[in-house]
């Protein structure tokens, strides 16, 4: 046990650590998406999930195809797209707020059957 911890701390960061981090981020995102009431918090949760995915891109590129750069580019693209998506989402949320005077997701049930 001691050896393992030593190796873990002294050697290069193992892939499991990166994947563990992204796993925690992703499920925090899912939990936040499902449980939070405020649209803003839900948006943040979505961002968290996206970032978890970015980490995965980078990690797999680094460990599986060290000489290549596609994974990094993908991550950069995703960040840019996430920024756009956030802008749109914020715009929608502002409109919702103007109409309903609240950003509670539970109030958005006008499309129910």
């Amino acid at each position: 046990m001691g050896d393992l911890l030593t190796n873990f701390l002294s050697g290069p960061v193992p892939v499991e650590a990166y994947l563990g981090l992204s796993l925690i981020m992703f499920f925090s995102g899912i939990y936040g998406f499902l449980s939070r009431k405020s649209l803003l918090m839900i948006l943040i949760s979505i961002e968290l999930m996206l970032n978890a995915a970015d980490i995965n891109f980078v990690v797999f590129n680094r460990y599986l195809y060290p000489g290549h750069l596609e994974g990094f580019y993908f991550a950069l693209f995703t960040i840019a797209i996430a920024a756009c998506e956030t802008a749109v989402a914020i715009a929608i949320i502002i409109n919702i707020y103007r109409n309903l005077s609240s950003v509670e997701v539970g109030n958005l049930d006008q499309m129910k059957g």
Partner: protein
Amino acid sequence: MQYTLLILLLPLLSFIILGLVDSKWSPKIAGTIGTVVLGIITALSYFAAWEYFTLHRIDGIYEKVIPFDMEWLRFTDFLHINLGILLDPISVMMLVVITTVSFMVNIYSLGYMANEKGFERYYAFLSLFTFSMLGLVIATNIFQMYIFWELVGVSSYLLIGFYYTKPSAVAAAKKAFIVTRFADLFFLIGILILSFYTKTFDFGLLTSGDPKVFAGAAGATFMGFSVLSWAMAGIFIGGAGKSAMFPLQIWLPDAMEGPTPVSALIHAATMVVAGVFLVARLFPVYITYTPEVLHGIAYVGAFTSLFAAVIACVQTDIKRVLAFSTISQIGFMMVALGVSGYGEHEGLGYMASMFHLFTHAMFKALLFLGAGSVIHAIHSNEMNQMGGLRKYMPITNWTFLIACLAIAGIPPFSGFFSKDEILSACYEFSPFMGITMTFIAGLTAFYMFRLYFNIFWGKEHKHEHTPHESHFAMAFPLIFLATVTVFAGWIPFGHFVTSDRANYEIHLDMTVASISVIIAVCSILLAMIMYRKESAIPKKLATAFSGLHTAASHRFYIDEVYLFITKEIVFNSISRPLAWFDRHVIDASMNGMASTTQWVSLKIKGFQSGQVQQYAYVFLLGTLVITLLVLFI
């Protein structure tokens, strides 16, 4: 002769215009348009007749002229429906008859229908009728004829039901339409069988006498008769429906619910002779290939004629008397066609039939218009409300008398000549037929003069206001038609219309003529004794023959038989079970599918909550389930 197309198109145009503007224009303008258009096409028809009969005679035979023909629908290489105009002696004659009577009726209606609600509609329908009837007679092929045949039925329906707020008129219109439509079904079947075997609809080919056309039908039989017999019988049934032959005559008396000028035009002079015209048109086929059907036509015609004449003797509604007399006279025409042969003297019946069609159209229209004039003055159709009208309505009196003399067959009025030719043809066919028809001619004279004396002589009835002679617009057609009735008999008709389109000199058979005139005069005298002054004889006779009298005044219960067959048998044993099946099986299965769908959607609509997070939750669970399935199965 391209201008004949105008004869057809002008009434159509007038119908469209009058139908579209409806009551936006004043009645005067509508009536003027309708009448002027009719006047123009009447003049055109006369000109066409003059040109046709003076120019188109080759080797003594009138050639068929087709000034206009176009292909309309092509089914196969040889089977196609054309629309065109066929001019031959009978169609030219019909053009003259239809336009003349229609023109007179249009003028007459200006007076008779004045101040009626729906005056423009009335004129629109009159134009539609004229258009359809003209289209029917000039059809180049049997299918075009069928199309116009149905159009005639529709316009007849519209005009009978003109007073659509009156339940009896609506019922009569429906009855007329359904009965004739039922007969037209047989007509269509006949057309289909005929065209299936001959591969053509064209009248020119069918009546050309070319045996190759009918080669396809040779030897084909069905239930003991050749298929051609079935086809031609079917076509005749169609004609019998329109021409009110027994047992399809029930609609015509009821059709008298329509305005009287309409009865004159449609139910006396033109539409009801469509059946006669149809048989005449296909006469070469009947005589060459299916003489047994032609004999059947003769017997049906004779029976109908007798049957209707007997009923006419006891009816009290003057329009109904005229209706039954129309049925009886059409029977005469059918008999004449049925007993006729082909060519020269053999074809006497054919010529006589067309001659009678011509003269009958004139004097029967005159009778109806006269009756209309009387009804206009008295405001009643019932004979016992009338009497002694000769003092108040001299023009109507004299013209009506002329028409009565014509229909009774008294020389020198037109009916005498045509009826005499028919009787001669009948005697040549068989003495029995000749005697029967002479007897019916006697009956005709009797019931017509019963009508005449009851209206214009007899006991004077008290009226709310003194009856007066009609307006000039109504008197003019009466005078015109009376003039035609007086002189039409002198037309050398055999010169124009014969079975083989060659010249034929009419000669009176003096024996037949004198016998029929003597019988007619006796009948008239009898009617005079019984009805000229009030007398007890009619009542005594009615009680003496009470069975016959009641049966005849109920029209021999034919309507009741129809009602029994339709209501009790057809409705109960066919329609009701079918309606039950429709409602409880077909409708129910459809309703079941609909209500199941509705039930399911009601149950599952809770899923659509509108809560985004719930959707995401379900989505996630689904993804998990699928993932697990993929991993472990």
